[in-house]
């Protein structure tokens, strides 16, 4: 047949921090244990077994909601470092940056929502501690997960066209071979380790989320290792009674951590409110590195684990946050 081709009209100048090898991902998915075996363990054990320095990591959440902060704190305490990050985050990314554990970011949003710019983001990016930043929109980053979840190397979109976000991304603009329109292609993104906090899971890792589910479905299917933390552990019979409520099936999961109030000081839908007092305290501390260091010492490094943290927060406080 004649020599046809699709013009590549533009290529973003950003690098692909974590290139996706879909055939290797297939092999890995093939080898994942499909047996119904308990994966219950502590935060520390999960980090110890499944995370290593230099990994490309990501957290699923919305703002401070449903955020696996327990895993973030365990990660910081573990001493592992030099992570590369899928940067759609708030408090969790802020802690990691404050502890200076991040070197490269696929950046879509890291800030403090209504409270604006984060001191940690500014310090780490402006100083070059984070030495590589590639820009994306929220949708683009999520579609990168979605492509990986679908087992394909890219997704097409109209987003980012005409912007400097595109210029600083690693997307490629093509002319559609069917319609002739311009499209940005965004490459699949496979995490080394993903962290998701859910409303409930069984010990094998079958997960339910109440209400909106953010990007849990997509990211849950785009991880080499997936660590689930759950507000509640339920029996598998309960999963089997309502299988249309399962959003992440067990075979995707490597560890299940039981962690009520995992999102603290953030909130958890249907479970507890944000701890506004503590969050305001945090906001005041993160303004300077000194303050941040003090915060990390008191609330992360000096607290051995999530149970100890809950004790430190105190029963009355936790009760008062309940929905």
């Amino acid at each position: 047949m004649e020599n046809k081709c699709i013009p590549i009209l533009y290529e973003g100048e950003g690098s692909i921090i974590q290139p996706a090898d879909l055939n290797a991902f297939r092999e890995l998915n093939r080898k994942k244990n499909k047996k119904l075996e308990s994966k219950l363990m502590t935060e520390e054990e999960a980090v110890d077994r499944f995370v290593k320095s230099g990994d490309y990591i990501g957290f699923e959440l919305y703002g401070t909601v449903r955020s696996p902060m327990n895993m973030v704190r365990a990660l910081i305490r573990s001493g592992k470092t030099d992570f590369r990050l899928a940067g759609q985050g708030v408090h969790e990314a802020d802690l990691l940056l404050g502890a200076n554990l991040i070197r490269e970011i696929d950046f879509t949003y890291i800030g403090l929502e209504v409270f604006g710019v984060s001191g940690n983001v500014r310090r780490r990016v402006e100083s070059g501690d984070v030495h590589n930043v590639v820009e994306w929109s929220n949708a683009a980053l999520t579609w990168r997960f979605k492509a990986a979840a679908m087992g394909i190397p890219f997704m097409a979109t109209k987003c980012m066209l005409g912007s400097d976000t595109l210029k600083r991304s690693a997307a490629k603009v093509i002319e559609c071979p069917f319609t002739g329109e311009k499209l940005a292609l965004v490459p699949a993104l496979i995490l080394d380790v993903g962290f998701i906090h859910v409303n409930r899971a069984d010990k094998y890792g079958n997960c339910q989320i109440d209400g909106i589910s953010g990007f849990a479905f997509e990211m849950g299917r785009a991880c080499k290792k997936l660590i689930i933390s759950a507000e509640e552990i339920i029996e598998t019979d309960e999963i089997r009674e309502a299988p249309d409520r399962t959003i992440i099936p067990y075979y995707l999961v490597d560890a299940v951590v039981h962690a009520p109030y995992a999102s603290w000081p953030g909130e958890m839908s249907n479970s507890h409110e944000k701890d506004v007092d503590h969050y305001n305290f945090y906001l005041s501390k993160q303004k300077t590195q000194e303050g941040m260091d003090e915060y990390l010492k008191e609330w992360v490094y000096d607290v051995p684990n999530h149970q100890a943290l809950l004790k430190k927060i105190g029963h009355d406080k936790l009760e008062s946050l309940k929905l």
Partner: protein
Amino acid sequence: MNTEYNPSELLICLASRVMEDGNTAFIGTGIPMLAASLAQNMHAPNLIAVFEFGGTGAILEKLPLAVGDTRTFNKALHASGICDIMESAQRGFIEYGFLGGAQIDAYGNLNSTAIGDVLKPKVRLPGSGGGNDVGSCCWRTIAIMKHDKRRFMEKIDFITTPGFISGPGAREAAGLPPNTGPYRVVTNLCVFDFDEKTKRMRLISLNPGVTIKDVKENTGFEILVADNVEQNAPPTEEELTILREKVDPDGLYR
């Protein structure tokens, strides 16, 4: 009832008035949330609020504090996820999108990524988030901005979210969906629309006590001025009552 109001309250009321009953609006954190809730309680009971992380058609009885909090899907018609919402926008389902940023230019392009060179930023900002997606895919975007010369600039440092880019035809040339783009810019001084021919910002109405001169002095680029510049009515007593007693009883925005 104290009918004096602060700049946030004015912005909330102005943004609220743009929202249409029985239409869809992509609601971001902060002022758009208050505006949407006020609109549902005033003229737009069937405003379909769409939140980035999956909430569609919530009844905003309590003010959401974040785009993913439980209140964004309170008694909602649909609770899905970010892909469904962004894909619905890309498919053309969302009419209004609300945006903010650190810098805006005459074409409505917005910067929320970096001040200075993005590779060696003077100030690293929080990034696009869903802003670029809203600005790319919603039919009509409304920017809500604090009005000063360091924000309203001839040339912004980084186009995080495209407005009309470099003028007429530029969005289409870039490949963005036709007939989309900036619709209004609402500030503490005034409201702009965009000139049909040049796609540049055009002053169409002034907030109470503000003059055209005030606007020009606080804007870093040459603005167009409509033939008849209207006066924006101040927040009404009804608006303020609902805003303070029902929408934001805790006074987060006072």
